[in-house]
């Protein structure tokens, strides 16, 4: 299958490991990726500034995806995925909103005549590629390893619009970990926010929120935390040291993207999966797989 990919600001400007691991793994599962030209911010941070400007940003990216000529749109970031889904609902539900947005689109020389089918990494792999295919490519299974997953808020809520997984009992990411031969543990704070949404207004509280969740995960005793959103990864991985000092505690939780874990189970080289960019202790995972980091 062929998909157009909308990466979003976080991945394009700093969370390079997600992009590298998606580019490395998905084509091996028969997914051809096509980049979209001229994209901008999805509109998520602008929702706090001007609602219609945020909608316009979402609509222009959807229009650019349409221009790329691919019906399926892969959006690996949870925040962008929600922003696009909400924008499509808003435009479907209100003629007034839609005509206003469409007029602005016209001024930029863009047109949105069909809404794409939107995928996230989690549902694309779980529902479309399928667990059997994923288990097949996992030539180096994660036998005996225990993980927890953090689905993130924006791909599971709100359930009154189409989302990737169940809002109160999301299991897809867990099942994807288990397809690779690992065990995925249930834990109390699974549905809780990582705190990234507070990073603009209250950065310290954001780190405290992430730190407390990481601490509770560490206390269960797991080999790693698996995420599927660049914002969650940023606070849990890149900012883990800050989280630890904010909550005055020691944290040592390996954090990685599902696509990185998938790549490891496929036997791919660590650097190609961007694992050298993770700041948390992922050596622990690599070594448990009987490999040398490098």
């Amino acid at each position, binding site marked *: 299958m062929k998909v157009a990919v909308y990466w979003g600001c976080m991945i394009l400007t700093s969370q390079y490991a997600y992009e590298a691991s998606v580019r490395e793994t998905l084509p091996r599962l028969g997914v051809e990726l096509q980049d979209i030209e001229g994209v*901008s911010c999805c509109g998520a941070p602008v929702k706090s500034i001007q609602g219609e400007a945020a909608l316009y940003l979402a609509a222009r990216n959807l229009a650019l995806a349409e221009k790329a000529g691919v019906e399926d749109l892969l959006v690996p970031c949870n925040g962008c995925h929600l922003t696009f889904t909400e924008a499509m609902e808003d435009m479907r539900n209100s003629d007034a909103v839609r005509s206003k947005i469409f007029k602005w689109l016209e001024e930029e020389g863009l047109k949105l005549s069909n809404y794409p089918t939107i995928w996230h990494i989690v549902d694309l792999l779980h529902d479309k590629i399928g667990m059997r295919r994923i288990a097949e490519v996992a030539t180096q299974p994660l036998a005996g390893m225990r993980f927890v997953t953090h689905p993130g808020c924006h791909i599971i809520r709100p359930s009154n619009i189409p989302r990737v997984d169940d809002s109160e009992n999301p299991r897809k990411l867990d099942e994807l970990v288990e397809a690779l031969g690992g065990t995925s543990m249930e834990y109390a704070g699974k549905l809780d926010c990582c705190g990234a949404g507070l990073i603009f207004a209250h950065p310290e509280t954001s780190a405290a929120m992430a730190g407390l969740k990481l601490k509770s995960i560490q206390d269960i005793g797991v080999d790693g935390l698996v995420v599927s959103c660049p914002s969650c990864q940023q606070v849990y991985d890149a900012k883990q040291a800050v989280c630890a000092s904010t909550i005055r505690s020691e944290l040592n939780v390996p954090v990685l993207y599902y696509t990185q874990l998938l790549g490891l189970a496929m036997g791919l080289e660590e650097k190609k999966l961007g694992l050298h960019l993770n700041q948390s202790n992922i050596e622990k995972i690599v070594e448990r797989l009987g490999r040398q980091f490098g």
Partner: protein
Amino acid sequence: MSLTDLMTEAKADISKRTKILTKVGDHRPYDCFNCMRCTSGCPSMKMLENKPHQVVALTNLGLVDELISSEMIWTCALCLKCKERCPQRAAPVDLILALRTSAVERQMKVPEAYMKALSMVLDIGLIQSFQEIVSRDMEPVTRDTLGLPTPAKPSEKFKSVIVKTLTGET
């Protein structure tokens, strides 16, 4: 005679409530029956004393000015639990977003990082420029050194249209 907040002497203004209700979003504060389920599950309640049910109640009373000048609307982490669990679909989070946009409109104090992100979007289309990050071995890494393609900038017209959308000009 209208309602007056005895702490601040702020007056209720129902017309301002109407203005908030017509803003983009899925909010229905008028359906709230104050069960406080939103506040009891709010992660920012524990950390920053955010009280979504109060935001809803104050809006319904018409005390909108108080809300948009308060810090409270900026303590929400946008986790959407309140919207998900509300039995009345009041969607406090969407209301909070509408209030934030009103605060921007009225030139209230807005956390600087939001405006900084917006000016980056106006400038290059993205919320920040392509960062040089460091690897685990402290090596500097860019999109180039990783062999990732360089994305094309938005069109020339992008900036003029986005400025129009910000001012609501059609």
